[in-house]
């Protein structure tokens, strides 16, 4: 029992050490950040790759006359192509949302800083009238 009560005591030194420990921040490349159009281009490229795969699947399937030889092309290129188109679409969607959110954040920061300045200005003005 004594051992559990010892464990439950918060050690201030441990808490302070945890608070002082630097947070590990992941550095994102500039071209991958929220406002960058590169992510959108990556999504478009992935979707185009998917369409190319579907085209390849069609070419290979049309060149075979045996169903058991056609099915692997259908699955490996055709369905994977559809999957890549969906992945590309999702990447484009996420990139568009990130860009919109970045623009919105910029506007909100601007508004907050203006309102802060306004508050300070009015606070300076208030005591002078008294």
């Amino acid at each position, binding site marked *: 029992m004594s051992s559990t009560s010892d464990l439950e005591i918060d050690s201030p030194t441990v808490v302070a050490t945890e608070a002082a420990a630097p947070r590990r921040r992941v550095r994102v490349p500039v071209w991958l950040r929220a406002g960058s159009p590169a992510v959108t281009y990556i999504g478009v490229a992935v979707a185009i790759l998917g*369409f190319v795969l579907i085209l390849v*699947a069609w070419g290979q399937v049309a060149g075979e006359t045996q169903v058991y030889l*056609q099915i692997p092309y259908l699955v490996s290129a055709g369905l994977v*192509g559809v999957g890549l188109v969906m992945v590309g679409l999702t990447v*484009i969607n996420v990139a568009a949302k990130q860009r919109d959110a970045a623009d919105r954040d910029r506007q909100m920061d601007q508004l907050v800083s203006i309102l802060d300045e306004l508050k300070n200005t009015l606070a300076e003005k208030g005591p002078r009238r008294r």
Partner: protein
Amino acid sequence: MKTGSRVATALRDPFVASVGILVVLAVTGLVGVAVAWKGAAATLVVALQLPYLVSGAIGGLALLGFALGLLLVQTRRRREARERAELDRVVRAAADLLAAARVTR
């Protein structure tokens, strides 16, 4: 105003132009599915039906899904742009208010 010039004016808006292109892509996808159905229905040999399935059905569905997905993204971005324009007006009004407060100080 003539219809042609109205269309030309509307197409100058990038949103209208992109929606037009995406609708054409979606219709092309549907036509691909229809062509695949017609081609596959014309033969009883499965080996000859499969190319129609791949090019028309899978390709058409991929094109249709891609176009509709981009259409949703474009529509949402248009709405976001309008909301940002409104917020921009609020920011400008706040900036004007700040300027007025500094002048009266």
